[in-house]
């Protein structure tokens, strides 16, 4: 287990011992993925192959971003088609999924299961079969890596929203998944908190899929996928995709599609 500090991001990224240079990036593969919730088709015929280390997903509310995140993490199975990470079906093989993929929900209150910080971090590790003592030791190592050793015994309800989000990130990182999916983890956070969390993320060795409303957060990413009405509208290098995305969002912003009801 590499115990490098998440700061500064540049040093972490160029660390020769970093996992990115040792292990190959996980390969996301979606083939003909359609997902229906009741009558509503949330995702429609998505084909995708990606192995970049930093992948961004943009799209409007209701475009299927969150559903896609849950699908990639194996929390929901597609109605049609297949979704795999490095050749393994995440929805079927949950045991393998724990090592392959971690997910950070939009609202940390939907993610935190335990009342005490160290228990929350330790849970995923015992789930992976580690003995309790070892899980506790690793939880503390994770807290120390972020200079948060003093949080160990804190009750989670005493944490601020940004602190809860960081706790969720530490709990996911402790399990050392090859890929981390983040579903708009920064919405509702103030600018300094967002910047601090973003800096922590920069230092993460694992591959990242980040869902965001904020094109600025994805500017340096290797690839950006733009979802619209459950389909891939654009897919490619961050710069051009984000420019067209922003232009379209501004165009739509001048219209009044808020009055349209779905269904």
């Amino acid at each position: 287990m590499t115990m490098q500090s998440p700061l500064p991001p540049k040093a972490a990224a160029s660390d020769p011992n970093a996992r990115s240079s040792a292990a190959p990036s996980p390969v996301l593969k979606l083939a003909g993925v359609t997902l229906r919730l009741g009558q509503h088709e949330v995702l429609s015929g998505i084909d995708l192959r990606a192995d970049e280390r930093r992948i961004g997903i943009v799209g409007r509310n209701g475009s299927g971003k969150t559903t896609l995140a849950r699908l990639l993490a194996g929390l929901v199975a597609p109605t049609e088609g297949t979704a795999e990470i490095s050749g393994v079906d995440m929805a079927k093989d949950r045991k393998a999924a724990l090592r392959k993929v971690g997910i950070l929900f939009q609202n940390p209150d939907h993610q935190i299961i335990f009342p005490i910080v160290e228990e929350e971090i330790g849970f995923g590790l015992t789930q992976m079969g580690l003995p309790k003592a070892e899980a506790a030791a690793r939880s503390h190592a994770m807290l120390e890596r972020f200079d948060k050793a003093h949080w160990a015994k804190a009750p989670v309800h005493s944490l601020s929203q940004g602190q809860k989000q960081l706790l969720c990130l530490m709990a996911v990182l402790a399990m050392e998944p090859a890929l981390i999916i983040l579903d708009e983890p920064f919405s509702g956070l103030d600018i300094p908190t967002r910047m601090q969390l973003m800096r922590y993320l920069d230092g993460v060795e694992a591959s990242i899929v980040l869902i965001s409303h904020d094109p600025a957060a994805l500017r340096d990413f290797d690839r950006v996928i733009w979802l619209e009405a459950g389909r891939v509208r654009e897919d490619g290098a961050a710069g051009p995709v984000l420019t067209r995305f922003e232009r379209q969002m501004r165009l739509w912003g001048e219209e009044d599609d808020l009055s349209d009801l779905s269904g």
Partner: protein
Amino acid sequence: MISLTSPVEIWAHRLPAWLKLAALSLATVCLFAIESPAVLALAVAAVAGLFLTGGRVFLAEGFRNLRILWTFLVLIAVWHGVTGQIEAGMAIALRLLAAVALANFVTMTTRLGDMIDVVSFLLTPLRRLGLSTRALELAIALVIRFTPSIARKGALLTQSWRARSPRRPGWQIVMPMAALAIDDAEHVAEALRARGGLE
């Protein structure tokens, strides 16, 4: 909100949970065997002394945790005052005070995880029979995790009601609160699945 393990670390935090729980059980049995109010008053004083070994802040916290008990104590005192059994009333009130304070002392000095470990050990026979006890252990943690969170949501609903009504909210917020609790349950189920579920 709900205070469990005390943030003030004292000597008792370092004792094993099973020892504290065993001593608590023994002490409670003794308390119920004692009839004399004078001896029970001594027991209350001894428990207070036990709290004092943790320092003044810890003692104050111990007092605060007994707040909920006062109504019952007053009720018992009034009832026995009316029926003329003052001595019996004193004994019951003092016994209750000592027993609850002592139980709180154990709660305040024991990490939840250690408490669950003891429960898990005691449930070993059930596991031998092939029943899974992990769900029960998790349930304890979930109750403690979500009690403050649901209470806060209730407070928010109350505010939302007040923002649009001159009357105080009553039973009307029970349904939305129940819906929110179900919502929470679905999110936890998903969070559990994301980290390997319960198999």
